[in-house]
């Protein structure tokens, strides 16, 4: 433990590695926290307890119940979400506790606060904890505020410290897609800090392999367009034409929909994100709104000027195939060792597109791929994964981390 940096260390005592996930949709925060923690821990002392919950809860009361069930060196971390995933369950409202413990797991942490104006530096700060892990298999879990603007800079900052030797995995906190404020949690048995505009680095060390999966399931629709004018996440022009005009024409929508039925407009464009041309596929950018004043499109992450972009389309089958693909990649990464569990960072946009039935199918294929191994995670505002190459920020994607 290094008190100077607020890190919390946790080494489990002589016990085989385990992974547990529990959830509750009880409306009482204390009862929900207690139920989810009980199901995840099953009386064991976790090294790491991840808590994901929807924004409606009175978080301190919920966390008190989780704290009362952990050991003195357990790390508690987590965030608010746009939905929770646990073995066989996917919910909008509720609390999920995902825990791991036993011999051969280590966790070290770093927090960075007020990250928005200094994302790159914050990324380097939270990545520093990985150097404290001395186990053969390592990964940096990242949980950060999902409303900081360009989260990619934070991920770049982390990669500049971690380098290519260890993977980056994680997701950005959500608030049920209301885009107002997200919260991050960090602490232990004696107290958990509830923050906003923060980044959390969780260095995970294991004696057994860790596997990462990244997949989405979108495909190109129609002809490519050049982003002729953009700034950060705002696209002004596609092929030299106002971006909103292009979008409405491509989707066969009338201008009036912006005024009369904004809800329908948002749903339609949600199903047609932009895909940016990349070596191994397309990088997805969710369009979450339009500004009729300057005819621009608003995306959740930066769309570089000069990029070649397609309108993307998908269907439930393709998205569910993506889930299967992601889980399979993660399990492949274990080098033949059996998995004890899987962490999932699934895009909130995928959940919206798939709908409740689709989501059940999605977790069904994940469960099938895992064959009874527990899993858990949350619906994110941006997914973080770097296994190959240097790119670590993704959208409309399902990122998975399998633990052997």
């Amino acid at each position, binding site marked *: 433990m290094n008190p100077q940096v607020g890190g919390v260390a946790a080494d489990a005592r002589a016990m085989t590695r385990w992974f547990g996930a529990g959830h509750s949709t009880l409306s009482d925060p204390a009862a929900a926290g207690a139920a989810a923690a009980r199901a995840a821990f099953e009386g064991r002392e976790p090294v790491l307890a991840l808590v994901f919950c929807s924004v409606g809860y009175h978080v301190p009361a919920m966390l008190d119940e989780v704290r009362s069930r952990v050991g003195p060196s357990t790390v508690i971390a987590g965030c608010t979400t746009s939905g929770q995933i646990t073995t066989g369950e996917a919910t909008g409202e509720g609390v999920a506790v995902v825990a791991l413990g036993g011999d051969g797991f280590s966790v070290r942490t770093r927090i960075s606060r007020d990250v928005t104006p200094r994302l790159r530096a914050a990324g380097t700060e939270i990545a520093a904890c990985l150097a404290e892990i001395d186990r053969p298999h390592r990964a940096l879990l990242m949980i950060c505020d999902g409303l900081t603007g360009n989260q990619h800079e934070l991920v770049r900052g982390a990669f500049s410290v971690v380098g290519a030797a260890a993977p980056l995995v994680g997701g950005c906190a959500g608030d049920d897609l209301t885009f107002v404020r997200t919260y991050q949690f960090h602490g232990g048995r004696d107290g958990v800090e509830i923050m906003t505009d923060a980044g959390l680095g969780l260095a995970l060390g294991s004696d057994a392999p860790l596997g990462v999966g990244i997949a989405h399931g979108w495909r190109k629709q129609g002809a*490519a367009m050049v982003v002729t004018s953009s700034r950060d996440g705002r696209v002004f022009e596609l092929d030299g034409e106002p971006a909103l005009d292009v979008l409405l024409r491509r989707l066969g929508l009338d201008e009036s929909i912006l005024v009369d039925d904004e809800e329908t407009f948002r749903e339609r464009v949600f199903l047609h994100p932009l895909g940016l*041309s990349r070596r191994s596929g397309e990088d997805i950018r969710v369009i979450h709104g339009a500004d009729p004043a300057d005819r621009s499109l608003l995306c959740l992450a930066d769309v570089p000027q000069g990029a070649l972009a397609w309108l993307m389309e998908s269907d439930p089958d393709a998205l569910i195939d993506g889930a299967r693909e992601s889980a399979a990649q993660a399990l492949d990464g274990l080098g033949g060792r059996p998995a004890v569990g899987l962490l999932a960072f699934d895009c909130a946009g995928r959940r919206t597109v798939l709908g409740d039935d689709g989501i059940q199918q999605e977790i069904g294929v994940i469960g099938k791929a895992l064959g009874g191994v527990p899993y858990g995670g949350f619906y994110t505002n941006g997914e973080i994964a770097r296994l190959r190459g240097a790119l670590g920020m993704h959208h409309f994607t399902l990122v998975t981390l399998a633990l052997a």
Partner: protein
Amino acid sequence: MNHWSTHQLTEFFAAVGSSQDERSATTVAMERASEVLEAEVGAVLRGGRVEVAWGMPGDDLDAALAAAAGATIDVAGLDELHVATARFGAQNRGDLLVARAGEPLSPEERQLLQAMAQTLGLALENITLLSAERRQREEREREAAERLALLESLREARHDSLTGLPTRVLFLEKLEEKVRLGTPTSVLFIDLDRFKAVNDSLGHRAGDELLAAVADRIRHCLRPGDVGARLGGDEFAVLLDDTTTDEAVPVARRLIDAVRRPFPIFGRDVFIGASVGVATHSDTTPADPGDLLGNADVAMYKAKKESPGKVVVFAPQMHAEALTRLTLTSDLQRALEQGEFHLQYQPLVRLGDGATAGVEALVRWHRPGGRNMAPADFVPMAEENGLILDIGRWVLRTAGAQLARWRATMPGLHLNVNVAGRQLTDPSLAGDVRRMLADFHLPPTALTLELTESVLMSDPAAAIARLTDLKAIGVGLAVDDFGTGYSSLSYLQRLPVDELKIDQAFIAHASPTVEDLAVLRAMIDLSRALRLRTVIEGIETEAQLVALRRLGCDLGQGFHLGRPADPEKLLTPVAA
């Protein structure tokens, strides 16, 4: 459709091209190239050494590259990495490097890396050019700012910041223009009267307000072609375009009248005056603007000396007088050191019984070559240059010592000593008096200090304060030359004085006329009403003596009663 790799180039170009400095351009290029090519490691090398890297530490990459046999490197914790580099830059050479696990770069990817490197090279050149341009621009802007500041300071040097009027520099330039044209041009040199008193009593801020207000009044008296200027302190000058001396004098009078009107300063009316010297340029006078202004200055000085509030037109002989003044100043400075001053004493006689009540000490200047000078000829100059303080101190001690000697045989003898206006404002005066009395064991009542009416009335409030200090010592105070100034009776009543010395002008006739007597009686009655001792100066005939004795005047002084004399000569009559 093109290969995916070409799609990336415009993005890359936009990102690298927007970098503001070399460091960020190389870093962005390294990051984007490795992200685009899905390479685990990216770096920029200069001179064969890693300058910036990510994906692995730069030092490790240097070591791995040095150890590499072929196109791959081995790095702990990673699979074998395929290295690809592309050169950039002409003058600012370097290599853009990526290292990727799995597959080596395809030909298209190598081409893309080359294009990215060239883009980086262009961006770096651009940044070099732009920063050179920026430096140049900053340099130009700095120079422009300096020039502006210089112009501003020149303008300031040519305009007085307090009044907004031109300064001496600009005034002389304008004057030179006029003089060159050959038209008659008059210069007025204006000096304010009593400005110093305002500054001293109301403070410098009031003084500044007053100067600004004076400048406004001067401006209002001028025509468009005329120029007003502030030369410094309380001195102003005016250039009257195409104006002869005869035309200039009425303008000067109007200026004086304008300045005499009260100035409302900080809620009270302030009264000052002005003295003006006039000099005119014509075909026959020198054309140098500095000389012309100097002539007006000399004339102003004469005006001030003769009587403040006057207009004096320059005449050539004034230069000679000015020269005399200069000589006088330096001679005065020597006089004290050389012991050229001495004192004479004139008796003050009790008119009731003819007894000598006291003496008035009068300073005399024995100049080398045997010439004697009366106080009227050098005291004003000594007041002007401040020497009066040293002279006054010398007079006080010398007369005090003499009085002490006399009082050994004539214990009741009193001494009157004149105090100049400048001395009255000297804070050390009271201390000097006290010390003198103590050193010569004289009672304070033996000494009376005489102050002229004009000194007391120029700033009665300050005078009352000073006189009160002196009064506290216990010495007597006299108003000298009473009736020649314009005493405010209300102030007279409040002044802590003991004695009025009626000026000899009131007994101009050898035998006083009925009118003379009426005036004298009124003054003596006034004096009595104020419980003051009365002294009449300048008694030169028996008739005057008889008349004044009859009017009840207390003491008299004059040739008829005793001329000023050296102390040793005065000893016998006094002793008698």
